[in-house]
Structures are given as structure tokens and as C-alpha cells.
């Protein structure tokens, strides 16, 4: 293993240009991540033709750097404009933007950046040390386990939102329900398309979150009386102090671990990891009702998890040749073009490539910290511009990004509809967090439940009696009860105090 790292270092220092490649790729990734609609997948896919110029190692360094950068990049626009630049960052907007609105944009960005770097490095270390055993562990996750994992995330809805429990549940169910539009994942039947073939795609996640977050926010700001006055001040990004860091250390550790494990599972990636770790952060918090109002853990949890998931999703790719996420699937295609056959033998036959990428991802995470601060400062300049220009520009950027992503005007329509819907939900105080969690985890829950039922021949007992499933489901049930109890208790306390009425 040391020998392998030796040859990797020899490669990097033998090709100093590879450092330039990493620098470029991280900047490209951050830029791609921060533009709404342009996801990391597109950023990676567009660079594949350029990797022809380089050897496979340099090519993979380039692609993995983009992956690292894009995962963080989305959180800048999520925090500053409530516009998640990439789906991975949707969860960051839940607490990041409220914190920025409280006048602490700099702090929010600092937490996001520090958590991203910590999560990213954590994920890379797991990848370096544990790739083969982790890949084997991930193979124990069948549909039943995926289902239980999704349920665990969904049940956190009961603890989210300081307001009404029932509204939280309805918002979550709305998310789950909207996710069922389109082609059925098992039978291929058309559902809720009402004969309209353009709805077969269903409600795609990217347009949906951009609508619910960004568009709804522009509408909200349009209605505010003080739209000329600056709402967000203090955007000088600073990393959290040691004291602040220590306060979130458990959250960081828990979320990074969740991120690495979920990242390693094929088919689910950074976005799922971010939402599940957010759910867990709410569940483990002493003040769950404060989530959504701009708490540090609400930013640290998703950001460390989604970046950790980047390293995690490289695990099955490098150890088994199975991509752990949509982005790594594109990377796999890129490797094939270079004549490299991804599979379990990759780590033996292409040792130098694999270990160079390990080191490269490590460097990329550190570079992300450096460039992230700069990028955030540039973005923050936009806040100085009058909202009469910025607001419409955000609308244009969202429309363009969503259209360009898939050249599908229906997606743009979905975004608009979801924007109006998100605005309505917000006005009526239905928690957006629950709604989005339902939207993200709903498809995973449904698909895996029904796959699992087909495999077990519709034997529900066989389905739930698997060890990992049983543990996860029992944990969900307990937390559901505990969540309701906590909300009920708070509700009673609130009723007791006269200040909370009205």
C-alpha cells in the first residue's frame, strides 16, 4: 500500500501539470455547482472529451476534482440567494438562507465551507483506507435495506418544523405524492399524467427544488416592502472559530459517516445523504424546533454529508466498477473510453491511477477550502446590486439552467408550478423541509419497497426480518413516537404561555 502511494506521489511530482489540472477542475466544479440547473453531472460530462488529451490518470483527476468542487459550489447560491445551485445543496438552503437573512451570511458560508472540507476529507480517508471492505458491506444493502433507510429519513418529518405537526406530515406526504407522477418504476404504467405524454418524465427533482426554493423566494422578495434595502449583510466569509467548531463536532462526525456509507451505496448519492443526515441532525438535536430558522447544525450536517458522499461514491466505482452515483456513472464512461475496464481488478492492475486519484481528491478538498472562500466573496458582490436587477436575473438563470439541463420546456413549466406551490406552502406555514424530504426520499422508498416485495414474493415478514432492515425500522418507529411526543409536549407548553398564542 505504501508502495502504491509512493508510485502515486511519483506520478504527481513527475507531472507537475496535474496540480494545475486539479486547481482548474475544482474551480470549474465550484462554478458549475453554483449555477442553478447545471449540476456536477453536466460539469463532468462536458469535460470528458477534454480528457482524451491527457492520460487516464490525469483525466480521472480532472473529473474527480470537478465532482468535489461542484458538490460544494451549490451551497454558495443556496445560502446567498436561496437558490440551490445543485440538488446536493438543496438541503443546505433550509438553514443556510435563514441564517444569511439574519445578517450572518458570512458565518453561514464559513460553516458550509468548513463542513464541506471536513466531510470531503473524511470521505476521502474512508475511500483510501476502507474501499474494499466498505464496498463489500454495501453489497449487503438490498431493496429492503434501502427502503428502511428511506423510512428512517422520512420519519424525521415528525420532528421537523416548530409549527403544527399535522402540517409537517401533510407537507411530507405532498412531497411523497408529487414524486409518484410519471412512469411507475416497476410496472412502467403511466401515473397521474392524465393522458399528457409530456408528463411521463414526472416531476424532476432539479426543477422542483429550484422552483420551491429560488422562485418562491423571488416572489416573496417581490412582495416585501423594503426590497431596496439590503436584507443580507456581512458576507465576509470566515471559517468558524474553534469554539463554534467544537459545538458541531458530533454533528460533523455523524453526518460525515452517514455520507460515506450512503455514498457507497449504488443508486443513492450525495443528495440523499444530505437529507438523511439533516433528518438525523434534527432527531439528535436538543432543540429540533429551531431547525429551519438558521442553526449551525442545519448547515454543517448536509454539507459534511454530501461532500463525504463524494468519497463514498468513489468506493464502489474503484473497488467493484459499479458507480455509486449518477456522477460517478459518467466518470465510469470516461474511464472506458481510455481503455480502462472498471472492475474489482482495477485496484490491482491500475494501482497508480487509483492511488493518484486518492491523493488528488485529498488535495482537491483542501483547494476547495481556499477557492471556496474566494468564490463566496465574488458571489457576495452580487448582493450589493439592487434586488430589482438581481431578482429577475435569478429567475432568468433558473429558467435557462433548467432548460439547458434537459432541453425540455416541460421541466421549466414544472419549475414555475412548483415555485407557485412552494410560495403558497410557505405562506400557509407548511414546513418546506418536510416537503422536500418527501420529494427526495419518496421515490427511493417506493421503488425499493416494491422491488423487495417482488424478491420476497410479497412476504412482508421476510422483508422486515432482515437484520439491517429491522434495526433501521425499529429506530424509525421509536423516533417517530419520540418526535410526536416532543412536539406534543412543546405544543402544550406553548399553549400554556400566553405569548405564543395568535
Amino acid at each position, binding site marked *: 500500500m505504501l508502495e502504491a502511494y509512493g508510485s502515486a506521489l511519483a506520478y504527481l511530482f513527475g507531472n507537475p501539470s496535474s496540480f494545475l489540472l486539479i486547481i482548474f477542475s475544482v474551480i470549474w466544479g465550484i462554478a458549475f455547482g453554483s449555477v442553478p440547473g447545471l449540476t456536477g453531472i453536466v460539469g463532468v460530462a462536458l469535460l470528458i472529451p477534454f480528457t482524451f488529451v491527457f492520460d487516464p490518470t490525469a483525466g480521472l483527476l480532472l473529473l474527480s476534482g470537478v465532482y468535489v468542487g461542484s458538490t460544494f459550489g451549490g451551497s454558495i447560491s443556496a445560502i446567498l440567494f436561496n437558490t440551490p445551485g445543485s440538488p446536493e445543496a438543496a438541503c443546505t438552503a433550509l438553514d443556510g438562507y435563514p441564517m444569511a437573512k439574519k445578517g450572518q451570511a458570512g458565518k453561514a458560508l464559513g460553516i458550509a465551507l468548513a463542513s464541506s472540507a471536513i466531510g470531503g476529507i473524511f470521505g476521502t480517508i474512508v475511500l483510501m483506507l476502507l474501499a474494499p471492505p466498505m464496498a463489500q458491506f454495501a453489497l449487503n444493502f438490498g*431493496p429492503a435495506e434501502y427502503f428502511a433507510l428511506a423510512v428512517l429519513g422520512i420519519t424525521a418529518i415528525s420532528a421537523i418544523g416548530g409549527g403544527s405537526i399535522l402540517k409537517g406530515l401533510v407537507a411530507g406526504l405532498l412531497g411523497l405524492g408529487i414524486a409518484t407522477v410519471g412512469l411507475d418504476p416497476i410496472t412502467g404504467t403511466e401515473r397521474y399524467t392524465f393522458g399528457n405524454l*409530456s408528463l411521463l*418524465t414526472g416531476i424532476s427533482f432539479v426543477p422542483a427544488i429550484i422552483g420551491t426554493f429560488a422562485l418562491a423566494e423571488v416572489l416573496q422578495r417581490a412582495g416585501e416592502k423594503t426590497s431596496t434595502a439590503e436584507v443580507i449583510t456581512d458576507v465576509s466569509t470566515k471559517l468558524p472559530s474553534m469554539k463554534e467548531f467544537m459545538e458541531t463536532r458530533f454533528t460533523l462526525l455523524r453526518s460525515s459517516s452517514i455520507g460515506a456509507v450512503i455514498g457507497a451505496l*449504488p*443508486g443513492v448519492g450525495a443528495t440523499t445523504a444530505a437529507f438523511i443526515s439533516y433528518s438525523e441532525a434534527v432527531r439528535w438535536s436538543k432543540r429540533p424546533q429551531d431547525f429551519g430558522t438558521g442553526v449551525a447544525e442545519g448547515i454543517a450536517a448536509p454539507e459534511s454529508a454530501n461532500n463525504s458522499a463524494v468519497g463514498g461514491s468513489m468506493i464502489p466505482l474503484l473497488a467493484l466498477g459499479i458507480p455509486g452515483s449518477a456522477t460517478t456513472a459518467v466518470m465510469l464512461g470516461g474511464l472506458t473510453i481510455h481503455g480502462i475496464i472498471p472492475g474489482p481488478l482495477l485496484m490491482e492492475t491500475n494501482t497508480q491511477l487509483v492511488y493518484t486519484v486518492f491523493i488528488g481528491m485529498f488535495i482537491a478538498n483542501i483547494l476547495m477550502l481556499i477557492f471556496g472562500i474566494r468564490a463566496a466573496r465574488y458571489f457576495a458582490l452580487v448582493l450589493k446590486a439592487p434586488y430589482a436587477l438581481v431578482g429577475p436575473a435569478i429567475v432568468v438563470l433558473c429558467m435557462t439552467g433548467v432548460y439547458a439541463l434537459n432541453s425540455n420546456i416541460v421541466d421549466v413549466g414544472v419549475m414555475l408550478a412548483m415555485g407557485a406551490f412552494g410560495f403558497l406552502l410557505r405562506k400557509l406555514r407548511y414546513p418546506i423541509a418536510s416537503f422536500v424530504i418527501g420529494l427526495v426520499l419518496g421515490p427511493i422508498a417506493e421503488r425499493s419497497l416494491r422491488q423487495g416485495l417482488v424478491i420476497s414474493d410479497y412476504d412482508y415478514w421476510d422483508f422486515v426480518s432482515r437484520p439491517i432492515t429491522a434495526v433501521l425500522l425499529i429506530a424509525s418507529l421509536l423516533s417517530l413516537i419520540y418526535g410526536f411526543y416532543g412536539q406534543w409536549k412543546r405544543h402544550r407548553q406553548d399553549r400554556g404561555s400566553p405569548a405564543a398564542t395568535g
Partner: protein
Amino acid sequence: MLSLKITTIAAVVAGMSIAAPAALAEDYPSRTIEVIHSYGPGGGTDRFVRAVAVPFEEISGQSMVPISIQGGGGMPAFANFQQRRVDGYTLMAISPDQIIAHALGRISMDAFQPLARVQYDQGMIVVPADSPFQTIEEFIAHARENPGDLTVGITGAAGFDDTVMGLWNIETGAEVTTVPFGSSEMVSNTLGGQVDAMHEEYGPARGLIDSGDMRPLVVFSDERLPVLPDVPTAVELGYDVTLGRWRAFAMPADADPAHVETLYGLISEAVASDAYQEVQEQAALQFRSELLDPEEFQAFIEEEIEVYTRVLDALGLLN
């Protein structure tokens, strides 16, 4: 006032460009060719178009770019294709998915002028290394005795994989249950033993086959693969299952025949180039990828429609 000006400018411009093509007919293609497809950026079809585009650009001097319009069983991509002007600069990369959409009555293959079928892949039934089944005969025998007991992972619902396995069930009479997954989950669920086998092409599975983690039992092709000389074909065993995933170019049905001819010439040259052939080999697609010209391709499509319609009907997917 403003709109009046715009209309005037636009009218002038329009006049120019309508006059233009007639004068420049020999110069076709004179700008970028856009190829619509219904898969993700960086996916198999996207890479296929890009692989053809590189030599195409050298030969014709014009670039070719893939446009990815994902999801919805290919419907949004098809809608976009149909909305575009028929000027010879819009192609669509088609595959068995369009045949299936045709059989399901969602689109009509008559909307296409077949241009060139380029790639033709072959699927396999693959089992994990610790599977009790060493040969396809054992696999079939078990399925005969316990209909529906064996689970086979496939990619996508009511799509290409479903049709292949449906045909396999019809031909062998030994019924297996298909479980639809996303492509990477299908592999991990098979490796992890959640399902008994999977249907996968040779290219993506070869890493796991080479390492001994997976074992192919049967190939859906006319001849054995030179790289897997010990794996029998379904045809050898007496089951006529040769359906494979193919990738091809098509133009709109009312495309100018001169354009079809010119473009086929350019594409066939591009496909014959070393640059393309190398990419094709790296993706392990060379075994039966034979270029079909517009007429051969049209005949091929008609055969495919017949087979797919029969199988989908048997699966109960046609109303």
C-alpha cells in the same frame, strides 16, 4: 414601435435564410448537426454520438453535438425532435426504446427516416460467482421446476431488458421473475445475492467477469463471443433470443433524400475511421456492430417492431 422594428428585422432575416438553402444545396452540411437523444449526458448513447462526432467533424468540417433530453420513456426527446424544423440539421439517436414506445402506441416509427444503424450490442444472463448454477441448463431446469422462483435483475421497467427476458420466458417456457432496478443497483444487488441473476451487456459486465466475481451463463447473439468461447448462445440451445440493444441515427420522415444520402455517406466514413473503431472496441461493442444503410435499417426496424410487439403483448403491456 419596438415590436414593429423587431418584426421588420426578423422578416428580412427570414427572407434571407429561406432563400439561402436553395442556393447552397451542395454545401450541406454547412452548420452544426444536432443529435437529440433520450439518455443522460455522459451515458452510453451520449458517448456513442460523441465518438461518431469526432471523425465526422474531420471529414465534413462541421461539428455534431448530442442533445440530451432525458426521461419519460423518451417522450420529451421525441416531442422536441418533432417540433424542430426539417432542415437536415436535426437527427435523433434511436434505440430499441423507440420501438417499444411505438409498440406501446406512444410514438410512431413512421416519424423517422432511418439513416444508419451503427452499434449492435448483445446481452447475457449473468450470475454471481457463488451462485449454485454453473450452466444455463441448470438454470433453466430450476426455473422449469419452480416457475417464477428465480429473480433476474433488469434495468428499467417495461423497457428493453423486460422485453428480452420476456422473450426468454416465452422461448424457454422456464419462467423467471424480473425485478427492475437502476443500472448500478442491479449490479450490486446481483453481486450481493439479493437477486439470482441479471441481464447485462458484455461491456459493462466484463470487469466483474474478468475478476471472477460473476459468471455469464448464456449470450443473446447468433454466434458465441470470441472473448467468451465457453458461453453458449441462446440460439445454440434452441431458443431464438437474439435481441440486442442497438444505437442508430434517424432523421425526420420527410427529410430531403439528398440530405439522407449525403449524411449517410459522411456517417459511414466516420464509423469506418480508426478513431471511432477504437472507441467501439474499448466499449466492447465490436462483436456484431455492422453498419446498416437506410434501406437495410428500415427492414431491420420492421422486423424489430414485429418481435417487440409480440413480446410486449405476451407480457400484458399492450392494451
